[in-house]
């Protein structure tokens, strides 16, 4: 599974099924502070992802 972090750092992670929430927790990210897409489509934090999914984490900038 490919994981793209808010700073655009990309890494390949274990393809075993996991919730988006679990992946965010491993990265120390609060799900309320980001949006997450799987293969270009927004998903909720309790969505199970895995396999060859591409997960993009988008930081919600504060202010404005």
């Amino acid at each position, binding site marked *: 599974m490919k994981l793209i972090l808010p700073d655009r750092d990309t890494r390949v992670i274990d393809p075993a099924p996991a919730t988006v929430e679990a992946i965010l927790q491993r990265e120390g990210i609060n799900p309320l502070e980001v949006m997450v897409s799987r293969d270009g489509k927004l998903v*909720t934090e309790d969505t199970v992802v895995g396999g060859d999914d591409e997960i993009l984490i988008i930081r919600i*900038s504060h202010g404005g």
Partner: protein
Amino acid sequence: MDPVTIRTDTPACTLCGEPAVILQRHTGRYLCGTHLLADVGQRVSETIDSQQQIVPGDVVAVALSGGKDSTALLLLLHSLFGSRDDIRLVAVTIDEGISEYREATIRSAEDLVRRLGVEHITVSFLELFGDSLDTILKGREPQACSICGILRKKALVVGAERAGATKLATGHNLDDEAQSVLMNVLRGDLMRLVRNSGVDSNGRFIPRIKPLMYMQEKEIATFLMVQGIWEDLPECPYATHALRREVRSMLCAIEYQHPGTMLRLMENKKAVEAAFLGKTVGEPVGTCRECGDPCSGDLCQLCQLKPSLLR
């Protein structure tokens, strides 16, 4: 080993069964893009109506930095009132002069007003105070947010006055408002805690309204994302110095574990406001002896700050 292909469907929208884009943790509902847009529009409209934030005859100055909150605010107000003859919207942008930050958001603001056909006024710190914020803050970066807050407040009022505004709408969201409540409690600042800037003070200042005050930051970001107008804009470089940053992180963690915490903070603020209704906390609103603006005490914050700006 070949990668394992696993496709697990996204949770479905509680209202229609389409793939959900957001879990509204405080209601427990899943919403698809279409129903999120409808829900945000309806809740903002209810906030405006319940507080009579905007009424026929109003000229609404919409504070538009070009960031996500003010962009969503102008889009929503334009969809609600853009075709009304008895309500006028004017976008007001403040150019503080923050390099590598404000240029991008101002460009975004200009694109938006052009697309919507909304009148646009820009006021700069350079024009009003003789210097950019970057210059003013040299050597006192830790005070950035308090100094900028005072100057921005004045600049917004000037912009709103130039627009002939009867209301000044800002894009403060639920996260911002709940953070402010908690910060005022932490500082022991009862006066700010009970103050309601949406109340008309006998025409002495333009009432401020906050139509997004019950919208979570994530709802606003997702609202823009599903419409394809989310822009990954930079954050203010001075925000690192603010107490707000620490409070935001703490409150967000609590909200995630205990959904509804931010809303409950707002309910508590309303209860405290109601308890102090009609009572004067701190000094009554007076008039600044230097500039004549309404203020508590005899010298407004801007006039207190001005001597140090002329270093």
